[in-house]
């Protein structure tokens, strides 16, 4: 497996490879998001209990799931960075953290905006809401730590340690609705059995989820490329790139 992975662990190859993928990700995410959000806003039915406010669902749940998924990805990258000393993994942590923080913020705000009409309050200190807030703090911690180090490689290693330590928060977020009785709704979409939800809500949801996922991939691609460049600025191929760009 190492042999197969090796060429992709080369910064120059990854830089160009990612560059080739970006337009595809952009196209797919635009198509899916236009379709999904269109369906969500205009065509999906209103909920019999929640009325039209249910349209926040199509933002809230994908954002919440991605906020956790991105953290998981970051933690895995962190593990590879520490165990195999893979410099590219360090770069991907730096690229992922701000994206994850953004989606966490979206999940929090859309949740709050949904909570006001449904529960009558913007915010309560229950387990799921609080643990999601902790997730935001963890992201901010990773970003702050990353910025605090001058040396990019050291920054990456330090951030890795923190990212791995923080991963215990993920099961707490996910199972909080089962472990504590809270105001927050239990699992509906993420159950493995047939989703307990009608198809005309489920389909727009899935389309939105994938749309946002590809958007994440695209933004990640751009940030990842910039991080690679910043970490390899001594390499001749980067200098060549810089000079080539200067001519244009």
């Amino acid at each position, binding site marked *: 497996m190492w042999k197969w992975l090796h060429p992709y662990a080369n910064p120059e190859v990854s830089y160009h490879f990612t560059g080739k993928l970006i337009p595809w990700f952009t196209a797919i995410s635009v198509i899916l998001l236009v379709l999904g959000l269109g369906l969500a806003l205009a065509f999906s039915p209103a909920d019999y209990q929640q009325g039209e406010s249910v349209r926040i669902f199509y933002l809230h749940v994908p954002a919440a799931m991605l906020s956790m998924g991105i953290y998981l990805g970051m933690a895995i990258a962190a593990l590879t960075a520490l165990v195999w000393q893979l410099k590219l993994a360090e770069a991907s942590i730096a690229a992922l953290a701000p994206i994850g923080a953004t989606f966490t913020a979206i999940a929090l705000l859309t949740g709050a905006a949904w909570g006001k009409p449904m529960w009558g309050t913007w915010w309560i200190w229950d387990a799921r809401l609080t643990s999601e807030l902790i997730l935001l703090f963890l992201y901010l911690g990773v970003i702050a*730590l990353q910025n605090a180090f001058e040396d990019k490689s*050291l920054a990456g290693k*330090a951030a890795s*340690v*923190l990212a791995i*330590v923080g991963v215990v928060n993920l099961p*707490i977020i996910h199972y909080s609705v089962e472990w504590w009785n809270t105001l927050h709704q239990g699992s509906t979409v993420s159950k493995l059995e047939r989703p307990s939800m009608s198809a005309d809500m489920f389909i727009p949801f899935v389309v939105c989820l994938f749309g946002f996922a590809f958007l994440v991939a695209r933004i990640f691609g751009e940030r990842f490329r910039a991080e690679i460049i910043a970490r390899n600025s001594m390499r001749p191929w980067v200098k060549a790139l810089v000079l080539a760009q200067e001519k244009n």
Partner: protein
Amino acid sequence: MQTSYSSAFFTILKRDLTIALRHRDDIINPLLFFIIVVSLFPLGIGPVSNTLMKIAPGVIWVAALLATLLSLERLFKNDHADGSLEQLLLSPCPTFILVLAKILAHWLITGLPLIIIAPLLGVLLNLHQDSYTALMLTLLLGTPVLSLLGAIGVALTVGLKKGGMLLSLLVLPLYIPVLIFATSAIDAASMNLPYNGQLAIIAAIFFGSLTLAPFAVGSALKVSTN
């Protein structure tokens, strides 16, 4: 080799305790800070004993958390500034043993006195009569966790010229679960409900961090002295 490891462990433990005991302030100050923070609340909130009783477990635990936080810097900062940390990392003994010794010393200096003084503050804040045992048990299991997790934060930030702020940002989110379970245990006790569940979770967190934190601290220190 085994004996030399344990001798290294005790050498470091003894050194850290000596340094702390030499100025007795190092032990008294976190305590006084704890007491002052707790007594700020009746001042800020007003002495209505009913409100106080409700917030007592929360205030005591938040104060314990902040007191630990402020004392964390001592764990590695001075050692880093005078070069001892480098020397410790270059000692023939595995880093996690040294780290464990330092964390134990830190807990003995800051955590233990907190536990001893806590009932007194409970009285100050009108803590519910049935909650004292729960308060003591949660502190006994919880304060070592604060030292262990805190050590990771200090180890990560020790090389940086930032104040304690970044440290708080990194460490406080990790402390929140302990805070939640501890206060909920104390609340349950005040209502005469069982609180074994919460205690078990805190114990699990304790053993988890006891086994993992020393390694995390070790690798963080290597990054910080680079």
